[in-house]
């Protein structure tokens, strides 16, 4: 029962099994998923909305939605982690666009991102650290304009037209930056997505060589 093939099998029950129990009313199972993914969901929300209180609201909404709508998760479309991040991103972007949020930002004068502090890496499993390092290395490998454009789209919730306007860049250039940047990221991170393609150690080495 603990030998299901998931990325989290070493840390407890598989996500899929926990979600099944959430569907059937187990608050304990929801708590287990919360302990597994709350920090990640909160991190994404905080990055998008830039306010700890609003990010907490997003976090609460995400896990309440998980409780209410667990049956809408489709494993064939990806992993639970991605599903939760997707909900968090969509909810946070909605908040970002709300008039209430705009007013709060005006009061604060800037995005309050100082709430995000690096946690001790000792608590993270080695494969998570390897993934984190691989993603950071891959993002660092992108030309700055490509990285900024992708981050404005993903974390800023902006359309390509909005990005073009905000950065005073032709729309066609924005599209090219998105496509080229995503293609490059996909290529660099492919071994992390598909471990059989190449071992994680090889990925870090390869990217280290690329950017060393």
């Amino acid at each position, binding site marked *: *029962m*603990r030998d*299901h093939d998931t990325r989290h099998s070493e840390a407890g*029950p598989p996500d899929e*099994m*926990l979600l*099944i*129990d959430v*569907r*059937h*009313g*187990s*608050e*304990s*199972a*929801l*708590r287990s998923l*919360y302990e597994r993914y*709350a*920090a*990640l*969901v*909160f*991190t*994404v929300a905080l*990055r998008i909305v830039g306010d*700890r209180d609003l*990010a*907490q609201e997003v*976090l*609460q909404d995400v*896990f*309440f939605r998980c*409780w*209410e709508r667990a*049956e809408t998760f489709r494993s064939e*479309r*990806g*992993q639970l*982690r*991605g599903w939760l*991040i997707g909900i968090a991103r969509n909810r946070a972007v909605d908040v970002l666009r709300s008039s209430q949020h705009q007013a709060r930002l005006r009061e604060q004068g800037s995005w309050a991102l100082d709430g*995000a*502090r*690096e*946690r001790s890496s000792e608590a993270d499993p080695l494969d998570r650290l390897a*993934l*984190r390092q691989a*993603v*950071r290395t891959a993002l660092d490998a992108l030309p700055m304009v490509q990285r900024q454009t992708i981050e404005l*789209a*993903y974390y800023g919730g902006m359309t390509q037209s909005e990005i073009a306007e905000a950065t005073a860049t032709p729309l066609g250039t924005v*599209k090219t930056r*998105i*496509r080229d940047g*995503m293609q490059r990221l*996909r290529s660099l*991170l492919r071994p*992390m*997505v598909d471990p059989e393609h190449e071992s994680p150690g090889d990925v870090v080495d390869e990217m280290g060589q690329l950017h060393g």
Partner: protein
Amino acid sequence: MVEAHEREHLSELALGLLEDAERVRVEAHVRGCPSCAAELSAYRDTIEMLPEALPSAQAPEAAWKAISARVRKRERRGRAGAGSWLGRFFGGRALLQPALLVVLVATVIGLIGWNASLQARLSGNDDSALYHLFDKSGGRATVVTLVAKPGASAVGGRLVMTQDRAEGGLVVGGMPALPAGQSYEIWFVRADQSRVPANTFAVDPQGQAVFLVDVPQPADGFDGVAITAEPSGGSPTPTGPDVLAGLIYQN
């Protein structure tokens, strides 16, 4: 006519950047194009990794309390009309998943059409034995959802135990027929993965079974239940893969 691939739009689709008309067109193509579907999936997997690069923030302590309070408030509202023992047996949720619905139907059929062996195990001719487990626990029975492992053809089942875990009852549905000389066996699983055998059982021609379970005592320390196919009469240790498995949560 071969439709042109939409590869140049896949990353935009994954990021949610396509306008409605374009999104609908690209999604329609992806549904019928395995190579573009695989590429889109790869882009989505890539995007899901992006948050890993962020400085990780600790979730506020108060968040879980707020979530738990909302969940309990919602459950109280959703409990209306869930007074039957079957409703409680399946968790009291308003919407049942298809697999559990099948089990529910199988349970009803099983309760109506007891076979001789099940009647003997239950020492009665109705559902009072299982109901009794809930009754003794004052509504705080432990319910374990058993799900099929990937690739297994079984549908699922539920084990209910009294609050003190001294007694238990099992209902399963959609279990594959076993060859002669084999029977199903229940295992209680400890955190270290060691297993203690409980009952062996057979299923009826519809793949269903409902019976009382001999919960190993003391029952503390078990965090899961599994069912395997074993030689008739049972085995001291599992010899086959899990057909069904589920986790025991503290109520």
